[in-house]
């Protein structure tokens, strides 16, 4: 296979640099002394102190995590179940229902947000986590469904049939053969769902309640006030945790590889 040229690699590096530039700027400005504005006025750690002391973003952060987990879990169950049966069956109304189920990620988010808002207001569902969980699960299901279904389609059906012929029950065949194979796909569907839920501003902003303020909507409100150094600090902390996890992962993998090699050698 043809390897990319130096120019090609440079291009990748340039785009990645541009992709990270605003992120780096935000991180840098979390140390800026001025409370608003783009001018650099000096180095300070006071925004981190303010962030940790006031704890203004702790609740919203936890709400966002909770919501992400709940929606990813629900979508994981519903989407996987549907994908398992859809991949192997054909029936008349499949096309219509499938398109309807996939609609949430095909149409602009604002439409979904406003229609949830008016619908939930009509049935008196307002405030708390429930409306948010319902809405987020709705746009998470398609991700899980598409990923898992794709995986099942690539699956060699003879493997499961072999298990069945060898006397495994339907459930046993599912648990010992199908599930382990699709599990990575289910997991990546759930993780993508979590990411989408965690960063959603548009839909959440129409469904907020007093006891369920989320991180993205809280940040949007802070941006609307124009004073964001403590939010920048929070952003930098989250980014730091992410990078730390990546580094840990890389190191663990590396160590495991070395260990494996040693075991193999013995």
């Amino acid at each position, binding site marked *: 296979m043809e390897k990319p040229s130096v120019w090609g690699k440079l291009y990748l590096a340039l785009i990645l640099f541009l992709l990270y530039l605003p992120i780096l700027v935000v991180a840098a400005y979390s140390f800026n002394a*001025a409370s*608003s*504005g*783009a*001018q650099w006025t000096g180095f300070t750690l006071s925004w981190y102190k303010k962030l940790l002391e*006031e704890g*203004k973003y*702790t*609740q919203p952060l*936890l709400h966002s*995590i*909770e919501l*992400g*987990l709940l929606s*990813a879990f629900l979508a994981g169950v519903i989407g996987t179940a549907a994908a398992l049966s859809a991949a192997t069956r054909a029936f008349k109304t499949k096309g219509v229902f499938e398109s309807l189920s996939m609609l949430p990620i095909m149409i602009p988010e604002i439409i979904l947000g406003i229609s949830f808002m008016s619908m939930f*207001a009509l049935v*008196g569902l*307002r*405030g708390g986590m429930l409306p948010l969980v319902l809405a987020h699960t709705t746009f998470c299901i398609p991700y899980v469904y598409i990923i898992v279904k794709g995986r099942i389609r690539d699956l060699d059906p003879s493997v499961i049939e072999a298990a069945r012929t060898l006397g495994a029950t339907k459930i046993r065949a599912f648990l010992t053969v199908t599930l382990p194979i699709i599990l*990575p796909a289910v*997991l*990546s569907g*759930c*993780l993508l769902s*979590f990411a989408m839920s965690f960063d959603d501003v548009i839909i959440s902003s129409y469904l*907020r*309640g*007093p*006891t369920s*303020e989320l991180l993205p909507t*809280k940040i949007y*409100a*802070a*941006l*609307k*006030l*124009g*004073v964001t150094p403590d939010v920048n600090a929070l952003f930098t902390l989250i980014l730091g945790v*992410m990078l730390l*996890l*990546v580094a*840990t*992962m*890389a190191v663990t*993998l590396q160590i495991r590889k070395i260990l494996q090699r040693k075991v193999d050698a013995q």
Partner: protein
Amino acid sequence: MKLPIRKLLSLCLLFSMTAALLTGCSGGKKQVNVLTYEGYIPDEIIADYEARGYQVNYTAAQTNEQMLDLLQAAKGGTYDIVICDDYIIPSMIESQVAAQLDYGRLSHAENIDPHYQSQFYDEENLYSIPYLAGFPLIVYDPAQVDFEIKGYADLWDSRLKNKLVILDQYRVIPGITLLSMGQSMNTTDQAVLAQCREKLLQLKPNVKLIDGSTPHVALINGDAAAGFVFTSQAMEVVKQRPDFKVVYPEEGLGFGVSCLMIAANAPHMDAAYDFVNYLLDGEVSAKVSELINYINCNTAAEAYLSAEFKANPVVYPPDSAFPPAAKRAPEIIQTVDNETNQIYDEMWTAFKNQ
């Protein structure tokens, strides 16, 4: 996606799950749910109040209409306290989302400055308590604007082309357009409104940014040279850019009062009164005013306000801003009928979409 990402992310999941479990229990604190603009009750005040054993759940709305909408959807419940502007109050009262105040439970009712009471929106003061007041002003950078801005009419000057930032308020900007024409901000005269629309649309070439919440940032950063902004925002500009000039428009000032109200079916009625009483305390009220730079509406706060703050010309405009030097006395934006409201709304949308 490749393997490491999945593993990494499952680690994240695990981590966040533990975090969620650890903090699922927020303790048996008394709750109070507040609905208002972001930052309208300063963080310091909330922290002080929470130290008394309450938890304040703060919902930030961007507009008065949004607050009304949230309250109506909750049928006057869910929230305990709302702080909103004058003109929306009649709608709040009419749709029964605001509670009649029980003055027996207001321990500092005597602190309320009667000067800001008994306005058109609540003549008998049955529902609302004035919280803060302010006059939106023009501020500009003399280094970038080579003529003197005296009033609203100057905002149409072609020398301000693409240099202006204005508030995102569908009644305020048509309102100052009317003032620049020598008309009332609350006119319902169709012919005058048609002229107003015409004139408003001519302002567009000068407007760089329409922003209700952070116009001061554009001014401080130098992305706009002149702006029509709220008191608090004007203060923020002057604090960071002392070279900016503040203008009290000669056509007369607009004036606004924001009020505290209790939701009709507030889930934490006792906490709501407790928090209102806290905010009506003279010392607390003075602190609120000085922190976010609006006119204080509390007679007991007088003693706690610094002389420097009381002499601040941005918050308390000098006599020259009022008649006879100005052409009109300050005017509050009032609720108008549905049809007229739609005319205001349509001219504003047309203006924004131009």
